[in-house]
C-alpha cells in the first residue's frame, strides 16, 4: 500500500503525529504536578514499605560473619566452636558500635527470650577470654547451649525472607527450611484474616440489602424529594468518621441509649442489658452504617439511567411486578451492585478506626493488627507484609470482578 500524503507532500501519518504530539505534551503538563505528588507521597512510600516486608538485611548487616557461618551450618546439633567464635566477634563489634540493642530486638522476633539473653550476654562480653568461646557462652547462660536459639538465629539470617508473610498466616520456617504451622497458642492471624473477610462480606451484604431499596426510591422520586433524601444519605459523609463512630458508642454501650430504651420498654431486664459493643455486633452495625453511602451512590447512579418505561413495558407484556423486576430491572442494576459491593468490600477489609473503637477483642480486624505491629511491636516488616497481603487480595478481587462482570461496566456515580 502506498503512503497517503498530505497536500503539502508530507506523509499523512507523520504530520498527524506532529499535530497530536503537541496536544499530548500539553495534556501531560497538566497531569505532571499530580503525577509528581503521587510518586513522592504515595508510590515511593508504598514501594518502600513493600520492600520492608521481605528485606531482612538488618540482622545480616549487624552480624555479617555469623550470617555466612550459620548458612553453612546443618542445624542438627549445636554449632561448632568456630561459629561461637565468629558470633562473639560479630556481637562484640556490634556492641562497640552500640548496635547490640538492635540485634537483641531483631532476634527477639525470631524467638522470645533472645532479648534478655543478648542483653545479659553483651554486658559480659568484655570478660571473655580468647579461646573456647563455646564453653564460655554456655557458662554465661545455658540458653546458649540450647539448639533452638541457634536454629532460630539461622532462620532469621537470610538477607531476603518470606518469613513475615508466613507469619501473617500463622506459618513459620523451621531451621531446615520446611514451612510448618506455628504452635497452637501462637496462631492469631489466621482467625483475624477469616474474621476480616467474614465481616467485610457481611457488611457488604447488609449494605446491599439496605441500600437497594433506598437507591431505588431515590431514582424514582421527583427531584426535590430525591435531593433531600440524597442529602440524608450523604450526611454521614460530611461528619467526621471519628464522631460517627463515637456516637455509635453512645448508642450501643451497655448503659447506652439503645439499651436504655429496651430496658424502659421492658424488652430486656436491667440486669441483662445487651452487649452490643466491644464485640462483632458493634463492628457490624457501625461499619454498615458508615459504608452505606458507598453502596447507595453507585446503585443510584445506575438506577437513574434505567428508564421507567422498561418496567411498564414489562408489565404491559404480561409480567407480574416481581417477574419484571427479576428479569428486567434487577439485571440492569448489576453494574451498580458490582461497583457498590466492590467498593464497600474493599473499604471494609481495610477498615481500622471503627473496629478499633467499637470492636473490642472479638471485633478487631486485620488492619488493627497491622496498626499494632506498626505502633506496639515496631515490627514494620510484619506490618508491611500484612499490608501487602491486603493489597494483593484487593487486586485479586478487582481482577476477578473484571473477569466476571467487566470493569467497563462499573459505575461509581
Amino acid at each position: 500500500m502506498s503512503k497517503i500524503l498530505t497536500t503539502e507532500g508530507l506523509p499523512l501519518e507523520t504530520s498527524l503525529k506532529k499535530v497530536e504530539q503537541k496536544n499530548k505534551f500539553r495534556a501531560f503538563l497538566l497531569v505532571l504536578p499530580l503525577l509528581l505528588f503521587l510518586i513522592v507521597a504515595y508510590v515511593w512510600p508504598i514501594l518502600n514499605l513493600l520492600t520492608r516486608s521481605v528485606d531482612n538485611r538488618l540482622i545480616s548487616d549487624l552480624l555479617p560473619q555469623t550470617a555466612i557461618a550459620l548458612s553453612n551450618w546443618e542445624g542438627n546439633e549445636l554449632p561448632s566452636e568456630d561459629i561461637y567464635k565468629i558470633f562473639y566477634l560479630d556481637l562484640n563489634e556490634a556492641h562497640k558500635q552500640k548496635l547490640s540493642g538492635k540485634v537483641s530486638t531483631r532476634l527477639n522476633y525470631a524467638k522470645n527470650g533472645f532479648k534478655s539473653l543478648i542483653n545479659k550476654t553483651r554486658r559480659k562480653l568484655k570478660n571473655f577470654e580468647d579461646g573456647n568461646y563455646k564453653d564460655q557462652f554456655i557458662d554465661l547462660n545455658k540458653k546458649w547451649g540450647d539448639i533452638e536459639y541457634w536454629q532460630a538465629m539461622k532462620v532469621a539470617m537470610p538477607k531476603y525472607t518470606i518469613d513475615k508473610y508466613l507469619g501473617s498466616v500463622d506459618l513459620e520456617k523451621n531451621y531446615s527450611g520446611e514451612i510448618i504451622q506455628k504452635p497452637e497458642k501462637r496462631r492469631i492471624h489466621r482467625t483475624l484474616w477469616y474474621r476480616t473477610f467474614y465481616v467485610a462480606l457481611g457488611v457488604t451484604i447488609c449494605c446491599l440489602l439496605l441500600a437497594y431499596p433506598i437507591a431505588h426510591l431515590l431514582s424514582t422520586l421527583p427531584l426535590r424529594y430525591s435531593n433531600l433524601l440524597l442529602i440524608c444519605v450523604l450526611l454521614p459523609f460530611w461528619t467526621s468518621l471519628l464522631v460517627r463512630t463515637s456516637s455509635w458508642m453512645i448508642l450501643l454501650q451497655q448503659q447506652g441509649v439503645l439499651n436504655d430504651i429496651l430496658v424502659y420498654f421492658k424488652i430486656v431486664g436491667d440486669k441483662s442489658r445487651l452487649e452490643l459493643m466491644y464485640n462483632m455486633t458493634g463492628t457490624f452495625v457501625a461499619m454498615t452504617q458508615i459504608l452505606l453511602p458507598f453502596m447507595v451512590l453507585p446503585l443510584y447512579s445506575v438506577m437513574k439511567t434505567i428508564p421507567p418505561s422498561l418496567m411498564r413495558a414489562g408489565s404491559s407484556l404480561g409480567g407480574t411486578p416481581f417477574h419484571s423486576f427479576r428479569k428486567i430491572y434487577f439485571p440492569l442494576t448489576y453494574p451498580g451492585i458490582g461497583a457498590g459491593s466492590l467498593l464497600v468490600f474493599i473499604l471494609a477489609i481495610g477498615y481500622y478506626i471503627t473496629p478499633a473503637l467499637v470492636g473490642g477483642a472479638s471485633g478487631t480486624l486485620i488492619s488493627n493488627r497491622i496498626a499494632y505491629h506498626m505502633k506496639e511491636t515496631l515490627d514494620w516488616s510484619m506490618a508491611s507484609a500484612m499490608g501487602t497481603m491486603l493489597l494483593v487480595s484487593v487486586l485479586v478481587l478487582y481482577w476477578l470482578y473484571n473477569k466476571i462482570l467487566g470493569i467497563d461496566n462499573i459505575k461509581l456515580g
Partner: protein
Amino acid sequence: MPQSSNTFVRFEKIDKSYDGKELVVKNLNLDIAEGEFLTLLGPSGSGKTTTLMMLAGFENPTSGEIYLDKKPISSITPHKRGIGMVFQNYALFPHMTVYENLAFPLRVRKIQNDEIENKINKALDMVSLTNFENRMPNQLSGGQQQRVAVARALVFEPKLVLMDEPLGALDKNLRESMQYELKHIHETLGVTIVYVTHDQGEALTMSNRIAVFNDGYIQQLSSPNELYERPTNSFVARFIGENNIINGTIVESDSKQCKVKTDNDEIIHANPVISNNVGDTTSMSLRPERVLINPSAEIPNKFKAKIEEVIYHGDHTRLRVKLLNQNDFILKVPNASNIFSFENGSELLLGWDSQDCRALDFIDN
C-alpha cells in the same frame, strides 16, 4: 371508518387529576370499535397521553370507568389487561437480544418453546426483521428498534395495542414509511389500535378516526377527511392543516348561510357551523387551497388581493397576499397547471365558495 359497530373500549365519564387541583382529562366519553385505528391527537398537555396511560393501566381514573370488551378494568393491574403497548422510546430491554425481547411476553404466558419460536419468526417477518434475532437492541438503528418494539407488542396477539408517539424519534422519511407499515399491519391483523401523536400528518395518514384533544376535552372526534374538511370549532381548524382566519360579526343568518361583516365593513358569505345568531362575533376558517383565482360569476365572495410574497414549494406555490386589510392571507396554487405567473406587488382577484368558509367560534388572534 369502524369495521364493526360493536364497542370494544369504552371510556365513561372519565375525570383525571394528578394534583387534586386541576383536571387533566375532563368528562371523557369515548367509544372505540373493535378493529379500529383510533388516534388521539393534540398538543402536549392536552390529556391524550394520560388517556392512553389510563387505558394501559399505568394511571388510574380519578372518577369514571373504562370498559374493555364490556368489562370494567379500573381495578385490573396492567399486566393482567393483555394490552400490547409500544412506547415512545421503544422501551426495549437493553440486556436481552431481539429474540429474548420478543420471547418475554410469550414466556410469561407459559407457551411451549417451539411455538415461541414460531410466533417470533412470524412477528419478525411481519416487520421485515428476519435474521435479527441475536442482535442486541443497541446494535439496531432507530427504525429497526421501533420495528422490534412493534413486533414485541404484537407477538402475544393482543386484541388491543396502544402506541404512544412511537415514531417521534425517527427522521422524516423513516417516519413516513413506518406510517404505511403500521397501517398495513393494522389492516392485515385487524387488531384494535389506539395511537397517540401530536403530528397531524401521522394522524391523518393512518387513522380510521381521530380524537382531537385540547385542554382535557375531546374537541372533535371524526374521520380524517371530515376533520380536515369540516372542523367543528376554531381550535380544530387551526390545529389541523393550514388556515386563513377572518374575524367578523354575523349580520344575517339562516341555517345554510350567513353573512358576516368584517372589521373593515366587507360582507362575507359563510357557512354557519357554530355561530348563527345575528350579532355574534365569529372566526371564519378558510383553507388556503380552497381559495380560487379569478373565480367564476356565481361565487359570492370576491375580493381584490395584492401579492406580498411568493414561496416556491416544489409541488405547489404559496402566495402570501394582502386581502381585506390582512397581509397574512395564504393561498396555495398547485404547480402542475402553470397557468399563472405570480409577481410580488401584482394584483389578483380571489374568491371562495360560501360553504368553504366556515364560521366557527370566535378566537381572538
